[in-house]
Protein backbone atom coordinates (compact mmCIF):
# COMPACT_ATOMS: atom_id res chain seq x y z
CA UNK A 1 0.00 0.00 0.00
CA UNK A 2 2.77 2.35 0.87
CA UNK A 3 4.88 1.20 -2.08
CA UNK A 4 2.04 1.80 -4.48
CA UNK A 5 1.55 5.36 -3.36
CA UNK A 6 5.29 5.98 -3.51
CA UNK A 7 5.39 4.91 -7.13
CA UNK A 8 2.95 7.63 -8.16
CA UNK A 9 3.62 11.27 -7.61
CA UNK A 10 2.39 12.21 -4.17
CA UNK A 11 -0.91 13.99 -4.66
CA UNK A 12 -2.55 13.73 -1.30
CA UNK A 13 -0.98 12.83 1.98
CA UNK A 14 -1.90 9.32 3.15
CA UNK A 15 -4.19 9.14 6.08
CA UNK A 16 -2.93 7.99 9.42
CA UNK A 17 -3.62 4.59 10.85
CA UNK A 18 -4.99 3.53 14.17
CA UNK A 19 -2.97 1.75 16.84
CA UNK A 20 -4.42 -0.61 19.40
CA UNK A 21 -2.16 -1.58 22.28
CA UNK A 22 -3.76 -4.51 24.04
CA UNK A 23 -2.80 -5.54 27.55
CA UNK A 24 0.83 -4.95 26.85
CA UNK A 25 3.30 -6.10 29.47
CA UNK A 26 7.00 -6.46 29.01
CA UNK A 27 9.94 -7.51 31.06
CA UNK A 28 13.66 -7.55 30.39
CA UNK A 29 15.56 -10.73 31.14
CA UNK A 30 18.63 -9.78 33.09
CA UNK A 31 21.20 -12.16 34.55
CA UNK A 32 19.86 -11.30 37.97
CA UNK A 33 16.31 -12.14 36.97
CA UNK A 34 13.37 -10.66 35.03
CA UNK A 35 12.86 -6.91 35.29
CA UNK A 36 9.29 -5.82 34.54
CA UNK A 37 9.13 -2.52 32.65
CA UNK A 38 5.53 -2.32 31.46
CA UNK A 39 2.45 -3.35 33.37
CA UNK A 40 -0.71 -3.99 31.42
CA UNK A 41 -0.78 -1.03 29.05
CA UNK A 42 -4.06 -0.76 27.27
CA UNK A 43 -4.39 2.07 24.79
CA UNK A 44 -6.22 2.84 21.57
CA UNK A 45 -4.94 5.62 19.34
CA UNK A 46 -7.20 7.21 16.76
CA UNK A 47 -5.92 7.51 13.20
CA UNK A 48 -4.40 10.86 12.45
CA UNK A 49 -4.12 11.94 16.06
CA UNK A 50 -1.05 13.28 17.84
CA UNK A 51 -0.51 11.44 21.11
CA UNK A 52 2.20 12.15 23.65
CA UNK A 53 3.56 9.60 26.11
CA UNK A 54 4.93 11.29 29.17
CA UNK A 55 6.62 9.70 32.14
CA UNK A 56 9.70 9.58 34.34
CA UNK A 57 12.81 7.83 33.07
CA UNK A 58 12.60 4.09 33.30
CA UNK A 59 8.85 4.09 32.86
CA UNK A 60 9.15 2.10 29.69
CA UNK A 61 8.02 4.76 27.22
CA UNK A 62 10.77 3.96 24.73
CA UNK A 63 10.00 0.27 25.13
CA UNK A 64 6.40 0.90 24.08
CA UNK A 65 7.62 2.65 20.95
CA UNK A 66 10.08 -0.13 20.09
CA UNK A 67 7.31 -2.71 20.46
CA UNK A 68 4.90 -0.70 18.34
CA UNK A 69 7.63 -0.29 15.74
CA UNK A 70 8.14 -4.03 15.76
CA UNK A 71 11.77 -4.02 16.85
CA UNK A 72 11.07 -5.97 20.02
CA UNK A 73 8.42 -8.54 20.76
CA UNK A 74 6.44 -8.07 23.98
CA UNK A 75 6.42 -10.74 26.67
CA UNK A 76 2.67 -10.38 27.10
CA UNK A 77 -0.03 -8.69 25.08
CA UNK A 78 -0.11 -7.49 21.50
CA UNK A 79 -0.09 -4.44 19.32
CA UNK A 80 -2.45 -4.14 16.40
CA UNK A 81 -1.78 -1.46 13.83
CA UNK A 82 -4.36 -0.70 11.17
CA UNK A 83 -6.12 -3.97 11.87
CA UNK A 84 -3.07 -6.25 11.61
CA UNK A 85 -0.89 -7.41 14.49
CA UNK A 86 2.65 -6.15 14.57
CA UNK A 87 5.20 -8.90 13.93
CA UNK A 88 8.21 -6.95 12.77
CA UNK A 89 9.43 -3.55 11.63
CA UNK A 90 7.94 -1.97 8.56
CA UNK A 91 8.54 1.33 6.75
CA UNK A 92 4.96 2.39 7.29
CA UNK A 93 5.77 2.66 10.97
CA UNK A 94 8.66 5.12 11.01
CA UNK A 95 10.73 5.49 14.16
CA UNK A 96 12.83 8.57 14.90
CA UNK A 97 15.35 8.23 17.74
CA UNK A 98 16.85 10.74 20.08
CA UNK A 99 20.10 10.28 18.24
CA UNK A 100 19.75 11.07 14.55
CA UNK A 101 21.71 7.86 13.85
CA UNK A 102 22.66 8.87 10.36
CA UNK A 103 25.00 6.46 8.61
CA UNK A 104 28.23 8.45 8.72
CA UNK A 105 29.66 6.99 5.51
CA UNK A 106 26.75 8.20 3.43
CA UNK A 107 25.84 11.65 2.24
CA UNK A 108 22.63 13.29 3.41
CA UNK A 109 20.99 12.34 0.13
CA UNK A 110 21.93 8.68 0.45
CA UNK A 111 20.89 8.65 4.09
CA UNK A 112 17.47 10.01 3.28
CA UNK A 113 17.14 7.51 0.46
CA UNK A 114 17.97 4.60 2.76
CA UNK A 115 14.40 3.35 3.02
CA UNK A 116 13.65 3.20 -0.71
CA UNK A 117 17.10 1.73 -1.29
CA UNK A 118 16.41 -1.02 1.22
CA UNK A 119 13.18 -1.80 -0.58
CA UNK A 120 14.90 -1.64 -3.94
CA UNK A 121 12.84 1.25 -5.25
CA UNK A 122 15.38 4.04 -5.17
CA UNK A 123 16.14 5.63 -8.53
CA UNK A 124 18.83 8.08 -9.55
CA UNK A 125 17.81 11.61 -8.58
CA UNK A 126 14.73 10.13 -6.98
CA UNK A 127 12.26 13.00 -6.52
CA UNK A 128 11.08 11.62 -3.22
CA UNK A 129 14.41 12.35 -1.61
CA UNK A 130 14.49 15.92 -2.87
CA UNK A 131 10.93 16.42 -1.71
CA UNK A 132 11.60 15.04 1.76
CA UNK A 133 14.63 17.32 2.10
CA UNK A 134 12.51 20.26 1.07
CA UNK A 135 9.87 19.39 3.64
CA UNK A 136 12.44 19.64 6.41
CA UNK A 137 14.05 22.70 4.89
CA UNK A 138 17.40 21.18 3.96
CA UNK A 139 17.44 21.50 0.20
CA UNK A 140 21.02 22.16 -0.82
CA UNK A 141 22.55 19.93 1.81
CA UNK A 142 22.13 16.80 -0.23
CA UNK A 143 25.86 16.31 -0.75
CA UNK A 144 26.93 17.02 2.82
CA UNK A 145 28.21 14.32 5.16
CA UNK A 146 26.67 13.83 8.62
CA UNK A 147 29.79 15.00 10.39
CA UNK A 148 29.40 18.37 8.74
CA UNK A 149 25.90 18.95 10.15
CA UNK A 150 24.83 20.51 13.41
CA UNK A 151 22.66 18.57 15.84
CA UNK A 152 19.47 20.20 14.68
CA UNK A 153 20.21 19.69 11.03
CA UNK A 154 21.09 16.05 11.59
CA UNK A 155 17.82 15.48 13.37
CA UNK A 156 16.02 17.09 10.45
CA UNK A 157 17.74 14.68 8.10
CA UNK A 158 16.53 11.87 10.32
CA UNK A 159 13.01 13.23 10.00
CA UNK A 160 13.35 13.46 6.23
CA UNK A 161 14.63 9.90 6.16
CA UNK A 162 11.54 8.75 8.00
CA UNK A 163 9.22 10.89 5.89
CA UNK A 164 10.47 9.69 2.53
CA UNK A 165 8.64 6.41 3.04
CA UNK A 166 5.35 8.25 3.56
CA UNK A 167 4.75 6.63 6.89
CA UNK A 168 1.21 6.33 8.15
CA UNK A 169 2.46 6.06 11.72
CA UNK A 170 5.21 8.27 13.04
CA UNK A 171 6.92 7.12 16.24
CA UNK A 172 9.11 9.71 17.87
CA UNK A 173 11.37 8.75 20.78
CA UNK A 174 12.39 11.99 22.49
CA UNK A 175 13.59 13.33 19.12
CA UNK A 176 14.44 16.77 20.42
CA UNK A 177 16.03 15.70 23.70
CA UNK A 178 19.62 16.30 22.60
CA UNK A 179 19.09 19.67 21.03
CA UNK A 180 19.55 23.10 22.54
CA UNK A 181 16.49 25.05 23.68
CA UNK A 182 16.32 27.35 20.68
CA UNK A 183 16.62 24.58 18.11
CA UNK A 184 14.03 22.63 20.03
CA UNK A 185 11.47 25.39 19.66
CA UNK A 186 12.12 25.61 15.95
CA UNK A 187 11.83 21.89 15.42
CA UNK A 188 8.69 21.61 17.49
CA UNK A 189 7.06 24.01 15.06
CA UNK A 190 8.48 21.89 12.20
CA UNK A 191 7.00 18.71 13.61
CA UNK A 192 3.60 20.30 13.94
CA UNK A 193 3.78 21.59 10.41
CA UNK A 194 4.79 18.19 9.04
CA UNK A 195 2.00 16.51 10.95
CA UNK A 196 -0.61 18.93 9.78
CA UNK A 197 0.56 18.58 6.18
CA UNK A 198 1.21 14.86 6.32
CA UNK A 199 -1.84 13.68 8.18
CA UNK A 200 -0.05 10.71 9.78
CA UNK A 201 -0.68 9.36 13.23
CA UNK A 202 2.03 10.58 15.60
CA UNK A 203 3.09 8.98 18.85
CA UNK A 204 5.60 11.12 20.69
CA UNK A 205 7.57 10.03 23.73
CA UNK A 206 8.88 12.89 25.79
CA UNK A 207 9.82 13.88 29.30
CA UNK A 208 9.11 17.54 28.59
CA UNK A 209 5.64 18.47 29.81
CA UNK A 210 5.52 21.72 27.86
CA UNK A 211 6.54 19.98 24.68
CA UNK A 212 3.82 17.39 25.15
CA UNK A 213 1.24 20.07 25.75
CA UNK A 214 2.42 22.13 22.80
CA UNK A 215 2.27 19.34 20.29
CA UNK A 216 -0.23 16.67 21.21
CA UNK A 217 -4.01 16.28 21.23
CA UNK A 218 -3.87 13.65 23.89
CA UNK A 219 -1.45 13.18 26.72
CA UNK A 220 -0.85 9.80 28.34
CA UNK A 221 1.00 9.86 31.65
CA UNK A 222 2.93 6.78 32.76
CA UNK A 223 4.04 5.85 36.25
CA UNK A 224 7.53 4.83 37.36
CA UNK A 225 8.81 1.38 36.51
CA UNK A 226 6.97 -0.85 35.90
CA UNK A 227 5.10 1.69 33.79
CA UNK A 228 1.33 1.77 33.87
CA UNK A 229 -1.06 4.42 32.65
CA UNK A 230 -1.92 6.83 35.42
CA UNK A 231 -3.39 9.62 33.37
CA UNK A 232 -5.06 10.22 30.01
CA UNK A 233 -5.85 13.85 29.19
CA UNK A 234 -7.32 15.54 26.18
CA UNK A 235 -5.46 18.68 25.27
CA UNK A 236 -8.35 20.82 24.14
CA UNK A 237 -6.46 23.90 23.12
CA UNK A 238 -6.46 25.58 19.76
CA UNK A 239 -3.18 25.60 17.86
CA UNK A 240 -0.87 27.50 17.90
CA UNK A 241 -0.69 27.12 21.65
CA UNK A 242 0.74 29.69 24.00
CA UNK A 243 2.45 28.71 27.21
CA UNK A 244 0.98 31.64 29.08
CA UNK A 245 -2.63 30.67 28.43
CA UNK A 246 -4.42 29.84 31.68
CA UNK A 247 -5.75 26.54 30.36
CA UNK A 248 -2.21 25.56 29.32
CA UNK A 249 -0.96 26.24 32.83
CA UNK A 250 -3.90 24.39 34.33
CA UNK A 251 -3.21 21.29 32.26
CA UNK A 252 0.44 21.59 33.15
CA UNK A 253 -0.37 21.56 36.84
CA UNK A 254 -2.59 18.53 36.40
CA UNK A 255 0.07 16.61 34.57
CA UNK A 256 2.76 17.48 37.07
CA UNK A 257 0.42 16.38 39.79
CA UNK A 258 -0.06 13.06 38.08
CA UNK A 259 3.69 12.72 37.88
CA UNK A 260 3.92 13.29 41.57
CA UNK A 261 5.07 16.90 41.63
CA UNK A 262 2.73 18.92 43.79
CA UNK A 263 3.26 22.66 43.76
Amino acid at each position, binding site marked *: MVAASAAQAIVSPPSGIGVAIQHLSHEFTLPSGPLPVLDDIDLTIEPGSFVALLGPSGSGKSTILRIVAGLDAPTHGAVVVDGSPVTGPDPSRALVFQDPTLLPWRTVWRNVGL*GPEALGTLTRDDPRVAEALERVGLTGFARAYPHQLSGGMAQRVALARALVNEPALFLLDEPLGKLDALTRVVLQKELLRLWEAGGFTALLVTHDVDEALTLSDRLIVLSERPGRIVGDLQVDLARPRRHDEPRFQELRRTVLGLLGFDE
Partner: protein
Amino acid sequence: MSISSIESRAVTPSLGARAASTALSESRSGWLATLLVSGATAVWAAATAVTLLVPDVRPLYTTAQIGAITALLTALFAAGALAGIAQPRVRAFVRALAPWFLVLGIAALAWQLITAKHKLLPLPYFPPPQTILDAFESDWSLLLESIFYSMRLLVLGVGLGAATGFLTGIAMGWSKRAHYWINPILRTIGPIPATAWLPLAFVLLPTAFGASIFILALATWFPVTFLTWAGVVSVSRSYYDVARTLGARDRFLVWKVAVPAAMPSVFVGLFMGLGNSFVTLLAAEMLGVKAGLGWYITWAQGWAAYPKVYAALAIIAALFSGLILLLFRVRDNVLSWQKGLVRW
Protein backbone atom coordinates in the same frame (compact mmCIF):
# COMPACT_ATOMS: atom_id res chain seq x y z
CA MET B 1 33.86 50.57 26.35
CA SER B 2 32.34 47.20 25.89
CA ILE B 3 33.44 44.25 27.96
CA SER B 4 34.77 42.39 24.95
CA SER B 5 37.15 45.16 23.96
CA ILE B 6 38.53 45.46 27.49
CA GLU B 7 39.12 41.73 27.53
CA SER B 8 40.84 41.73 24.18
CA ARG B 9 43.10 44.53 25.31
CA ALA B 10 44.23 42.60 28.35
CA VAL B 11 44.83 39.32 26.58
CA THR B 12 46.43 40.38 23.30
CA PRO B 13 49.68 42.32 23.52
CA SER B 14 49.94 45.35 21.33
CA LEU B 15 50.71 44.72 17.73
CA GLY B 16 54.13 46.35 17.93
CA ALA B 17 55.20 44.30 20.93
CA ARG B 18 54.04 41.15 19.28
CA ALA B 19 55.99 41.80 16.12
CA ALA B 20 59.12 42.51 18.11
CA SER B 21 58.89 39.33 20.15
CA THR B 22 58.27 37.24 17.05
CA ALA B 23 61.26 38.74 15.35
CA LEU B 24 63.41 38.04 18.39
CA SER B 25 62.36 34.41 18.63
CA GLU B 26 62.83 34.00 14.91
CA SER B 27 66.30 35.38 15.00
CA ARG B 28 67.17 33.18 17.96
CA SER B 29 65.91 30.10 16.16
CA GLY B 30 67.38 31.57 13.01
CA TRP B 31 71.02 31.29 13.94
CA LEU B 32 70.47 27.86 15.47
CA ALA B 33 68.90 26.71 12.23
CA THR B 34 71.78 28.17 10.23
CA LEU B 35 74.16 26.31 12.51
CA LEU B 36 72.35 23.05 11.88
CA VAL B 37 72.29 23.55 8.14
CA SER B 38 75.94 24.44 7.89
CA GLY B 39 76.83 21.65 10.30
CA ALA B 40 75.00 19.11 8.19
CA THR B 41 76.70 20.34 5.03
CA ALA B 42 80.08 20.20 6.73
CA VAL B 43 79.58 16.64 7.97
CA TRP B 44 78.57 15.43 4.52
CA ALA B 45 81.54 17.22 2.98
CA ALA B 46 83.76 15.47 5.52
CA ALA B 47 82.19 12.13 4.63
CA THR B 48 82.92 12.79 0.96
CA ALA B 49 86.51 13.69 1.75
CA VAL B 50 87.04 10.65 3.93
CA THR B 51 85.52 8.36 1.29
CA LEU B 52 87.68 9.64 -1.52
CA LEU B 53 90.91 10.57 0.18
CA VAL B 54 91.48 8.04 2.96
CA PRO B 55 92.78 4.73 1.58
CA ASP B 56 90.57 1.64 1.82
CA VAL B 57 91.69 -1.02 4.25
CA ARG B 58 91.07 -3.73 1.63
CA PRO B 59 90.27 -3.62 -2.08
CA LEU B 60 86.81 -2.15 -2.63
CA TYR B 61 85.66 -1.58 -6.18
CA THR B 62 83.07 1.13 -5.87
CA THR B 63 84.71 3.68 -3.59
CA ALA B 64 84.77 6.28 -6.35
CA GLN B 65 81.04 5.83 -6.92
CA ILE B 66 80.20 6.06 -3.24
CA GLY B 67 82.31 9.20 -3.08
CA ALA B 68 80.43 10.61 -6.05
CA ILE B 69 77.04 9.88 -4.44
CA THR B 70 78.14 11.45 -1.17
CA ALA B 71 79.47 14.47 -3.02
CA LEU B 72 76.23 14.81 -4.93
CA LEU B 73 74.14 14.76 -1.77
CA THR B 74 76.43 17.34 -0.17
CA ALA B 75 76.19 19.58 -3.22
CA LEU B 76 72.40 19.32 -3.44
CA PHE B 77 71.96 20.22 0.18
CA ALA B 78 74.41 23.09 -0.03
CA ALA B 79 72.66 24.37 -3.16
CA GLY B 80 69.37 24.23 -1.33
CA ALA B 81 70.82 26.09 1.61
CA LEU B 82 72.19 28.81 -0.66
CA ALA B 83 68.95 29.11 -2.59
CA GLY B 84 67.16 29.41 0.72
CA ILE B 85 68.89 32.67 1.44
CA ALA B 86 66.65 34.34 -1.12
CA GLN B 87 63.68 31.98 -1.14
CA PRO B 88 61.86 31.59 2.19
CA ARG B 89 60.00 28.44 1.11
CA VAL B 90 63.23 26.67 0.16
CA ARG B 91 64.81 27.90 3.37
CA ALA B 92 61.98 26.41 5.43
CA PHE B 93 62.29 23.10 3.61
CA VAL B 94 66.04 22.90 4.05
CA ARG B 95 65.74 23.83 7.74
CA ALA B 96 63.15 21.13 8.30
CA LEU B 97 65.44 18.59 6.63
CA ALA B 98 68.62 19.70 8.40
CA PRO B 99 68.48 17.73 11.68
CA TRP B 100 67.88 14.37 9.95
CA PHE B 101 70.41 15.21 7.28
CA LEU B 102 72.96 15.95 9.97
CA VAL B 103 72.37 12.62 11.71
CA LEU B 104 72.56 10.73 8.42
CA GLY B 105 75.77 12.55 7.58
CA ILE B 106 77.35 11.51 10.85
CA ALA B 107 76.20 7.95 10.22
CA ALA B 108 77.64 7.97 6.68
CA LEU B 109 80.95 9.31 7.91
CA ALA B 110 81.13 6.81 10.75
CA TRP B 111 80.17 3.94 8.46
CA GLN B 112 82.97 4.76 6.03
CA LEU B 113 85.55 5.14 8.74
CA ILE B 114 84.60 2.04 10.68
CA THR B 115 84.11 -0.41 7.84
CA ALA B 116 85.95 0.84 4.78
CA LYS B 117 88.90 2.69 6.22
CA HIS B 118 89.46 0.61 9.33
CA LYS B 119 88.37 -2.90 10.18
CA LEU B 120 86.73 -2.13 13.48
CA LEU B 121 83.69 -4.36 13.17
CA PRO B 122 83.70 -8.06 12.23
CA LEU B 123 83.22 -9.00 8.64
CA PRO B 124 81.17 -10.25 6.90
CA TYR B 125 78.39 -8.91 9.07
CA PHE B 126 79.28 -5.20 8.90
CA PRO B 127 80.22 -4.48 5.31
CA PRO B 128 81.16 -1.06 3.98
CA PRO B 129 78.61 0.79 1.82
CA GLN B 130 80.81 0.15 -1.22
CA THR B 131 80.03 -3.56 -1.11
CA ILE B 132 76.30 -2.96 -0.88
CA LEU B 133 76.41 -0.68 -3.91
CA ASP B 134 78.49 -3.37 -5.58
CA ALA B 135 75.81 -5.94 -4.81
CA PHE B 136 73.18 -3.74 -6.47
CA GLU B 137 75.37 -3.26 -9.52
CA SER B 138 76.40 -6.85 -10.06
CA ASP B 139 73.01 -8.39 -9.31
CA TRP B 140 70.66 -5.76 -10.69
CA SER B 141 68.98 -8.07 -13.20
CA LEU B 142 68.62 -10.88 -10.68
CA LEU B 143 67.22 -8.41 -8.18
CA LEU B 144 64.70 -7.09 -10.69
CA GLU B 145 63.62 -10.62 -11.49
CA SER B 146 63.37 -11.34 -7.78
CA ILE B 147 61.23 -8.27 -7.24
CA PHE B 148 58.87 -9.45 -9.95
CA TYR B 149 58.60 -12.96 -8.52
CA SER B 150 58.08 -11.73 -4.98
CA MET B 151 55.48 -9.20 -6.00
CA ARG B 152 53.60 -11.85 -7.91
CA LEU B 153 53.61 -14.11 -4.87
CA LEU B 154 52.57 -11.27 -2.59
CA VAL B 155 49.71 -10.10 -4.75
CA LEU B 156 48.31 -13.59 -5.13
CA GLY B 157 48.90 -14.71 -1.55
CA VAL B 158 47.89 -11.53 0.21
CA GLY B 159 44.98 -11.04 -2.14
CA LEU B 160 43.66 -14.51 -1.45
CA GLY B 161 44.20 -14.19 2.28
CA ALA B 162 42.59 -10.77 2.49
CA ALA B 163 39.56 -11.74 0.45
CA THR B 164 38.90 -14.93 2.40
CA GLY B 165 39.65 -13.16 5.67
CA PHE B 166 37.15 -10.44 4.86
CA LEU B 167 34.40 -12.93 4.08
CA THR B 168 35.22 -15.13 7.06
CA GLY B 169 35.18 -12.15 9.39
CA ILE B 170 31.79 -11.00 8.14
CA ALA B 171 30.40 -14.49 8.48
CA MET B 172 31.73 -14.77 12.01
CA GLY B 173 30.36 -11.40 13.01
CA TRP B 174 26.95 -12.01 11.55
CA SER B 175 26.16 -15.67 12.05
CA LYS B 176 26.35 -17.41 15.41
CA ARG B 177 26.86 -20.73 13.71
CA ALA B 178 29.79 -19.45 11.66
CA HIS B 179 31.28 -17.99 14.81
CA TYR B 180 30.91 -21.31 16.62
CA TRP B 181 32.87 -23.18 14.00
CA ILE B 182 35.44 -20.61 12.97
CA ASN B 183 36.36 -19.05 16.29
CA PRO B 184 38.30 -22.04 17.68
CA ILE B 185 40.18 -22.36 14.39
CA LEU B 186 41.04 -18.68 14.58
CA ARG B 187 42.28 -18.97 18.12
CA THR B 188 44.45 -22.04 17.58
CA ILE B 189 45.80 -21.62 14.07
CA GLY B 190 46.21 -17.89 14.09
CA PRO B 191 49.12 -17.57 16.47
CA ILE B 192 51.14 -20.37 14.82
CA PRO B 193 53.83 -18.76 12.68
CA ALA B 194 53.55 -19.47 8.99
CA THR B 195 57.03 -20.97 8.87
CA ALA B 196 55.82 -23.88 10.95
CA TRP B 197 53.37 -24.73 8.18
CA LEU B 198 56.03 -24.96 5.48
CA PRO B 199 56.66 -28.70 5.36
CA LEU B 200 53.00 -29.54 5.83
CA ALA B 201 51.87 -27.10 3.17
CA PHE B 202 54.44 -28.47 0.81
CA VAL B 203 53.16 -32.01 1.16
CA LEU B 204 49.47 -31.14 1.05
CA LEU B 205 49.48 -28.82 -1.93
CA PRO B 206 50.21 -30.05 -5.42
CA THR B 207 52.93 -27.55 -6.24
CA ALA B 208 55.58 -25.66 -4.31
CA PHE B 209 54.15 -22.48 -5.78
CA GLY B 210 50.80 -23.36 -4.30
CA ALA B 211 52.42 -23.99 -0.95
CA SER B 212 54.07 -20.57 -0.98
CA ILE B 213 50.77 -18.87 -1.84
CA PHE B 214 49.07 -20.81 0.91
CA ILE B 215 51.59 -19.70 3.53
CA LEU B 216 51.22 -16.05 2.55
CA ALA B 217 47.45 -16.29 2.42
CA LEU B 218 47.37 -17.83 5.87
CA ALA B 219 49.56 -15.11 7.34
CA THR B 220 47.21 -12.48 5.92
CA TRP B 221 44.00 -14.32 6.70
CA PHE B 222 44.38 -14.27 10.45
CA PRO B 223 44.56 -10.52 11.16
CA VAL B 224 42.06 -9.63 8.44
CA THR B 225 39.51 -12.14 9.77
CA PHE B 226 40.00 -11.09 13.32
CA LEU B 227 39.66 -7.38 12.69
CA THR B 228 36.81 -7.68 10.23
CA TRP B 229 34.94 -9.71 12.80
CA ALA B 230 35.71 -7.15 15.48
CA GLY B 231 34.46 -4.39 13.21
CA VAL B 232 31.22 -6.13 12.37
CA VAL B 233 30.54 -7.06 15.96
CA SER B 234 31.04 -3.55 17.22
CA VAL B 235 28.51 -1.97 14.86
CA SER B 236 26.07 0.04 16.91
CA ARG B 237 22.71 -1.67 17.28
CA SER B 238 20.90 1.54 16.52
CA TYR B 239 22.14 1.43 12.92
CA TYR B 240 20.42 -1.89 12.51
CA ASP B 241 17.29 -0.61 14.26
CA VAL B 242 17.04 2.37 11.95
CA ALA B 243 17.58 0.29 8.84
CA ARG B 244 15.08 -2.33 9.94
CA THR B 245 12.37 0.22 10.60
CA LEU B 246 13.00 1.54 7.11
CA GLY B 247 12.32 -1.90 5.70
CA ALA B 248 15.78 -3.40 5.37
CA ARG B 249 16.22 -7.15 5.25
CA ASP B 250 19.21 -9.19 6.37
CA ARG B 251 21.12 -8.94 3.10
CA PHE B 252 20.87 -5.15 3.16
CA LEU B 253 21.84 -5.06 6.82
CA VAL B 254 24.96 -7.12 6.23
CA TRP B 255 26.26 -5.50 3.06
CA LYS B 256 25.00 -1.94 3.35
CA VAL B 257 25.16 -1.37 7.10
CA ALA B 258 27.51 -3.83 8.83
CA VAL B 259 30.26 -3.87 6.20
CA PRO B 260 30.59 -0.09 5.71
CA ALA B 261 30.48 0.44 9.47
CA ALA B 262 33.22 -2.17 9.92
CA MET B 263 35.49 -0.73 7.21
CA PRO B 264 37.77 1.26 9.52
CA SER B 265 38.51 -1.92 11.44
CA VAL B 266 38.89 -3.90 8.22
CA PHE B 267 41.60 -1.51 7.09
CA VAL B 268 43.51 -1.99 10.32
CA GLY B 269 43.38 -5.71 9.61
CA LEU B 270 44.65 -5.14 6.08
CA PHE B 271 47.59 -3.13 7.34
CA MET B 272 48.49 -5.86 9.80
CA GLY B 273 48.03 -8.53 7.16
CA LEU B 274 50.31 -6.71 4.75
CA GLY B 275 52.99 -6.31 7.40
CA ASN B 276 52.69 -9.97 8.33
CA SER B 277 53.00 -11.04 4.73
CA PHE B 278 56.37 -9.39 4.25
CA VAL B 279 57.74 -11.20 7.25
CA THR B 280 56.34 -14.43 5.89
CA LEU B 281 57.67 -13.82 2.38
CA LEU B 282 61.11 -14.99 3.40
CA ALA B 283 59.78 -18.28 4.67
CA ALA B 284 57.37 -18.73 1.78
CA GLU B 285 60.21 -18.40 -0.70
CA MET B 286 62.28 -21.11 0.87
CA LEU B 287 60.43 -23.73 -1.11
CA GLY B 288 60.94 -24.51 -4.74
CA VAL B 289 61.11 -20.92 -5.89
CA LYS B 290 63.08 -19.80 -8.90
CA ALA B 291 63.73 -16.24 -7.75
CA GLY B 292 62.40 -13.77 -5.26
CA LEU B 293 63.62 -11.36 -2.63
CA GLY B 294 63.26 -13.87 0.20
CA TRP B 295 64.97 -16.51 -1.92
CA TYR B 296 67.76 -14.04 -2.69
CA ILE B 297 68.28 -13.25 0.99
CA THR B 298 68.38 -16.93 1.97
CA TRP B 299 70.82 -17.65 -0.84
CA ALA B 300 73.07 -14.71 -0.01
CA GLN B 301 72.94 -15.49 3.68
CA GLY B 302 74.03 -19.06 2.98
CA TRP B 303 77.18 -17.67 1.45
CA ALA B 304 77.53 -15.08 4.22
CA ALA B 305 77.35 -12.51 1.42
CA TYR B 306 75.84 -9.94 3.73
CA PRO B 307 76.17 -6.94 1.41
CA LYS B 308 73.72 -8.74 -0.86
CA VAL B 309 71.46 -9.45 2.09
CA TYR B 310 71.40 -5.79 3.07
CA ALA B 311 70.82 -4.71 -0.51
CA ALA B 312 67.80 -6.98 -0.73
CA LEU B 313 66.56 -5.80 2.67
CA ALA B 314 66.75 -2.22 1.46
CA ILE B 315 64.62 -3.14 -1.54
CA ILE B 316 62.12 -4.92 0.68
CA ALA B 317 61.91 -1.86 2.92
CA ALA B 318 61.27 0.39 -0.06
CA LEU B 319 58.63 -1.94 -1.50
CA PHE B 320 56.90 -2.32 1.82
CA SER B 321 56.80 1.45 2.35
CA GLY B 322 55.36 1.87 -1.10
CA LEU B 323 52.64 -0.68 -0.57
CA ILE B 324 51.70 0.70 2.81
CA LEU B 325 51.50 4.16 1.29
CA LEU B 326 49.25 2.80 -1.42
CA LEU B 327 47.02 1.16 1.15
CA PHE B 328 46.84 4.45 3.02
CA ARG B 329 45.69 6.22 -0.13
CA VAL B 330 43.03 3.63 -0.73
CA ARG B 331 41.89 3.91 2.86
CA ASP B 332 41.72 7.68 2.68
CA ASN B 333 39.55 7.37 -0.37
CA VAL B 334 37.18 4.75 1.00
CA LEU B 335 37.00 6.23 4.44
CA SER B 336 36.83 9.86 3.32
CA TRP B 337 33.74 10.27 5.45
CA GLN B 338 35.91 9.91 8.50
CA LYS B 339 37.87 13.04 7.69
CA GLY B 340 35.91 15.19 10.04
CA LEU B 341 35.68 12.66 12.81
CA VAL B 342 38.87 10.77 13.36
CA ARG B 343 42.54 11.54 12.95
CA TRP B 344 44.67 8.62 11.98
